[in-house]
């Protein structure tokens, strides 16, 4: 951290990328400082690799600027950029040995032979591969190939090294060793590293700053401590580390109601009675006697994890995860308490809870008691209700009225799953269709960044006719 200067080396301004009509990056802005280790973290399909490829020059944004050292470099081909990449699958040249792989970039720079030899030797020593010069790369282990790839990028003395999930193919122990080694290499070479991963632990271990992305936007940028301790929303809290994320209401400044109890907290400025998301890390919850606790619950599960016990405590309908050095017997009622500082309040991911759609009836049949209305290029049929053609309606669908349908079924096809957050009772799933977002409750864990058909249960919906006069008002 102390090594990072304040000079911005690369800056992405209002970057927008679309492939085949699908938005990959939705107007992102990002500044990266000299000598900084920045990690771009997010689930697969969030746009992190595309962000890296824009800096590398392999993808050109549809709009927005890439500024490198004060100069706009949009459209500059990769070979003219002073940036080198460590690719996900290493991409070592199979027809060259270790030495020639590492020397590849230097030979292109037309450096004298002696200098190339000296630099390659030095770099192989840095990545701990002394004496491997003549080995064919296919004969190396995954970790060794990884090191060759890093040496090949670093030896060119780039201003930025881009790393695209470089540890993904390694086993856990090797990953952990390599994480520390990478950080050490970055520190000793004083180079800017931009690292892409979906592994939150990796991001927290190595980075000076973490950029959390989801669905083509940057959710939060901050130091590892900041994104862990002060996540800006439920997505970040859920993605990084373990967390209890609960629905809460701000009673007043510094007063929050969760699980039916009022608790003191430190956040303010959300407005009176505002619905909020609350995150409490499992290690911040203390087990107390029932009388002393702010909340009370029944212990349902206890697992010994070495440093602590992991307990699942049921408070009413909600399941709360607690990490504690003290254990409690299953079935006993315990008190739970949290210091106000450790209750993190966040704005809701969506500004609404119930899904409200405005629609005009396209066709209605009184005798068969149904009507149809157009919704995002599809026709939705509502059984059990009748409104004549042309009626303007406001339909309110609570989250529990939404469900994911099987293939080829459903009222809306191909709805994108943007996030899935467990709220102690249900998963709250945020979906994105062509024109709007939806909130849905589900007890199953859905895969984010996939497309699913969505169907509506209109027996749980409420219908209101909207008259023209009301509209004008």
């Amino acid at each position, binding site marked *: 951290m102390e090594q990072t200067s304040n000079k911005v080396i690369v800056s992405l301004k209002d970057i927008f990328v679309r492939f085949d009509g699908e938005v990959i990056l939705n107007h992102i802005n990002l500044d990266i400082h000299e000598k900084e280790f920045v990690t771009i973290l997010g689930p697969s399909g969030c746009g992190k690799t595309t962000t890296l490829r824009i800096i590398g020059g392999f993808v050109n944004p549809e709009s927005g600027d890439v500024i490198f050292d004060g100069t706009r470099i949009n459209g500059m081909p990769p070979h003219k950029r002073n*940036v080198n990449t460590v690719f996900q*699958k290493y*991409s070592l040249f199979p027809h060259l040995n270790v030495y020639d792989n590492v020397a*590849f*970039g230097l030979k*292109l720079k037309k450096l004298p032979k002696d200098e190339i030899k000296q630099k390659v030797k030095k770099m192989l020593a840095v990545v701990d591969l002394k004496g491997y010069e003549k080995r064919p790369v296919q004969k190396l282990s995954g970790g060794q190939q990884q090191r060759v790839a890093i040496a090949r990028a670093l030896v060119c003395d780039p201003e930025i090294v881009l790393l695209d999930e470089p540890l993904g193919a390694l086993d856990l122990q090797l990953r952990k060793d390599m994480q520390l080694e990478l950080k050490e290499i970055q520190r000793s070479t004083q180079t800017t590293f931009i690292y892409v991963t979906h592994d939150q632990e990796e991001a927290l271990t190595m980075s000076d700053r973490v950029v959390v992305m989801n669905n083509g936007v940057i959710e939060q940028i901050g130091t590892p401590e900041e994104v862990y301790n002060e996540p800006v929303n439920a997505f970040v809290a859920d993605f990084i580390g373990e967390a209890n994320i609960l629905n809460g209401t701000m009673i007043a400044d510094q007063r929050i109601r969760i699980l039916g109890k009022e608790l003191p907290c430190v956040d303010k400025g959300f407005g009176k009675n505002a619905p909020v998301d609350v995150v409490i890390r499992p290690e911040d919850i203390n087990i107390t006697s029932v009388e002393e606790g702010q909340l009370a619950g029944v212990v349902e599960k206890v697992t010994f994890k070495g440093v602590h016990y992991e307990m699942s405590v049921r408070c009413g309908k909600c399941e709360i995860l607690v990490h504690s050095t003290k254990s409690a017997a299953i079935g006993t009622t315990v008190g739970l308490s949290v210091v106000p500082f450790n209750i993190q309040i966040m704005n809701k991911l969506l500004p609404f809870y119930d899904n409200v759609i405005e629609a005009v009836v396209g066709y209605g049949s009184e005798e068969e008691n149904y009507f149809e209305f157009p919704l995002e290029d599809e026709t939705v049929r509502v059984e059990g209700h009748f409104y004549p053609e042309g009626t303007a309606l406001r339909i309110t669908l609570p989250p529990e009225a939404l469900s994911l349908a099987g293939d080829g079924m459903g009222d809306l096809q191909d709805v994108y799953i943007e996030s899935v957050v467990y709220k102690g009772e249900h998963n709250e799933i945020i979906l994105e269709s062509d024109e709007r977002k939806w909130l849905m409750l589900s007890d199953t864990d859905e895969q984010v960044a996939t497309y699913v058909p969505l169907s509506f249960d209109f027996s749980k919906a409420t219908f209101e006719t909207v008259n023209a006069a009301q509209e004008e008002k």
Partner: protein
Amino acid sequence: MKSKLLSLPYIVWMLVFTMIPLVMIGVTAFTDNSGCFSVDAFVSAFQYTNIFLKSLWIALLSTVICLLLAYPLAYIICQMRPSTQKTVIMLMMIPMWMNFLLRIYAWVLLLQNGGPLDTLLSAIGIHGDYSNNTAAVVVGMVYEYLPFMLLPIYTVMGKIDKSLIEAAQDLGSNKASVFRRVILPLSIPGVISGITMVFVPSASTFVVAQYLGGTDDIMIGDVIDKIFFTNNHIGAALSLVLMVFILLFLVLMNKFGDEEAIA
């Protein structure tokens, strides 16, 4: 044990249809009409040295021309969209479904005096003989064997990992140097198998020269074809010599290929 049992039919096949005929050819080559050991057939075979060398020369020329045509073509095809690639490869393959003799005969018609090419060039004042010479034989051979050069090169080139090309660009390669430093060395195995697949059959081919070549453009395959009816000892001897040459060529190519893979 089980794998040995499974390979038995193939071993029997090889024995009956490859090894025994090979031994028979060897025996025929080293005997005379009375069945005694003799090297007369080889001595007589020497009279065909010129034809032999010319055949190898034509085969070599055809192979080189095939390579010069097929390599850039394979490279261009690999740059196309996958669906277009399939179509182009299909178009290259379709003529191969036609009978070999018909295709050669089509060339005879195209190149003969008064044929389409002659008529066309005469109209703009160029006169000449396009048929019955060595050039026509080479044209026929190139046409015949081009797909055998294209396919292996295309297959190998198409399998080159795109990320290797990106890695080369990332390290400072422009288009020309990506080609020279990555695509060319990695496509060598395809080139080697293409050369083998074209040179070997074209060295021993027959009929092409009979139809398209002049009177002195007879190839060793044609000689073997004819001579077997009158003197099978010389025919067998010629076949053996040709086999040895092809074998030498294959060994050479493999050696070259191995070195290329290590370098």
